């Protein structure tokens, strides 16, 4: 399910005093099975971008092509597209509504017109994928913890068996373990099923840990597009637009400013640890 954005612009309320250009001239191609992180400040256009990908909104200019569907084509059927591209919104648990966990997760497949046994199988599969015990099926989603509710919401999208999964801030407001569990599940889902995952996040830690490509959006344009190691090299330009680098990278950056001979980027704690130990020994040897 390759995704291709050609010269895409999106303007809110065009031709009115409230006109606002959310995206301008975006060109982006996403191959099958990629794991992409999208970062940018609030208001940079990230959310507009992801909503374009499943046809919730259509570009004011340019084209968005997902597989063989172009969202602006005349008479295009967007329903199959929305099934193929699953979108998990920020604080998705606010959208839970059903009386039981199972009914909430089944809502999408039910609307696809699948038969009951298929729906039941998909509910089970989705629950296991996000790590919810099947005993929870008959419980009210509103009596679960925040992290569990978030997982029910994600399971509802997974039950549609999307080929592209877009997650907008899936870990915001969760405790460290909840964060960790959701990210581990998403990583496994990507590895095992080979689906395309697009992760929108303010957490550079989450991004560094998972994705193989980062797209930086700033004022409606693509500012950087590359592997994490490359993008996080430009710490100054990122902090200039209100973003940061992973803490491990930040520690190395400070050490370099103090004259240490360490690489510019570490994506994980283990990596930073290795670099610092090596530099320490080198410095001790010289002394």
């Amino acid at each position: 399910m390759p995704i291709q954005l050609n010269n895409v612009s999106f303007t809110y309320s065009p031709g009115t005093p409230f006109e606002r250009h959310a995206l301008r001239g975006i060109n982006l191609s996403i191959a099958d099975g990629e794991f992409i992180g999208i970062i940018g400040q609030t208001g940079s256009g990230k959310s507009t971008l992801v909503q374009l990908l499943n046809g919730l909104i259509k570009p004011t200019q340019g084209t968005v092509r997902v597989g063989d569907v172009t969202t602006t084509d005349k008479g295009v059927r967007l329903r199959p597209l929305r099934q193929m591209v699953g979108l998990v919104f920020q604080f998705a648990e606010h959208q839970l509504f059903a009386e039981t966990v199972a009914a909430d997760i089944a809502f999408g497949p039910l609307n696809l017109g699948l038969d009951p046994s298929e729906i039941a199988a998909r509910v089970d599969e989705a629950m296991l994928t996000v790590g919810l015990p099947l005993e929870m099926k008959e419980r009210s989603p509103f009596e679960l913890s925040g992290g569990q509710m978030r997982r029910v919401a994600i399971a509802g999208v997974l039950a549609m068996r999307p080929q592209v999964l877009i997650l907008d801030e899936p870990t915001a407001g969760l405790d460290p373990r909840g964060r960790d569990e959701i990210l581990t599940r998403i990583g496994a889902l990507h590895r095992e099923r080979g689906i395309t995952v697009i992760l929108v996040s303010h957490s550079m830690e989450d991004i560094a840990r998972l994705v193989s490509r980062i797209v930086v959006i700033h004022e409606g344009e693509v500012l950087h597009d590359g592997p994490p190691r490359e993008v996080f090299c430009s710490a100054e330009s990122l902090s200039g637009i209100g973003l940061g680098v992973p803490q491990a990278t930040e520690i190395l950056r400070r050490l370099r400013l103090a004259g240490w001979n360490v690489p510019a980027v570490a994506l994980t704690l283990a990596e930073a640890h290795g670099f610092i130990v090596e530099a320490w020994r080198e410095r001790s040897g010289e002394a």
Partner: protein
Amino acid sequence: MQCVELNSGTQIKGAAGIIETKGLHHVYRGHEGDTHALGGIDIRIEEGDFVAIIGRNGSGKSTLAKHFNAILLPTEGRVLVLGMDTRDTGLLWSIRQAVGMVFQNPDNQIVATVIDEDVAFGPENLGVPTPEIAERVDAALRQVNMLALRHHAPHLLSGGQKQRVAIAGVLAMHPKLLVLDEATAMLDPVGRAEVIETILALRSIAKMTTVLITHHMDEAVLAHRVIVMDEGRVVASGTPAEVFAQPELLESLGLDVPLAAKLAKELIRSGLSLPEGILTAAQLVDSLCQFN
């Protein structure tokens, strides 16, 4: 005992902490049975304290905080705010005025269409005379560095700015305690930094007594005291250095230690001679440079 005069004229006994909880239990009654959210909390928050409360989702942090200004009342035990028992409904206004809360969602806390009117909402309801309201609004907006945008519409603000307005709204009520319940959770890194800087400024200039509930360990290290909650109880409490020196305990509770602290610990394990108690990136880098 000295007496403290509150704005409302209520006389209360002095020498009490800002908050004191005694054997506090709270039970939520639900369709699927009761949830024992707090199981006997005894804490004291003194004037000038800066306390962070950490704990996993559902550990009781927010339930506890909601007892600090009588949004929730104890099922068992007592909560005293400046010596006032929160179960005494006659004291509700004095308690609400004394303890201001800022919540997670910046969009749920703004009521007016212009920023300074929003900040004026609290003091207006307290019956503060109009000229004084204007002074309070000015002062509060200045404290959160939002005075320049006073005539703007709130919906045009960023998340961080909205939270700063929410803090100003609380400050205009001249509270004794500011409680922030995951006030940075929905913000981007810039918004988070703005709110944290605002809190630190209030601390250093106004010595505002502050309770910060957070999932971000790098925010918790800024406090003077960290209270760790699990399953409705306080399971650890101490300075950030003391609390974060127990990574095993924290991890078993589904929490974390700040990355710099974890890294420092592993570097020490690898034989680097670094001091104990490193919590932040700045401290780690300083120590590395100092000891090598």
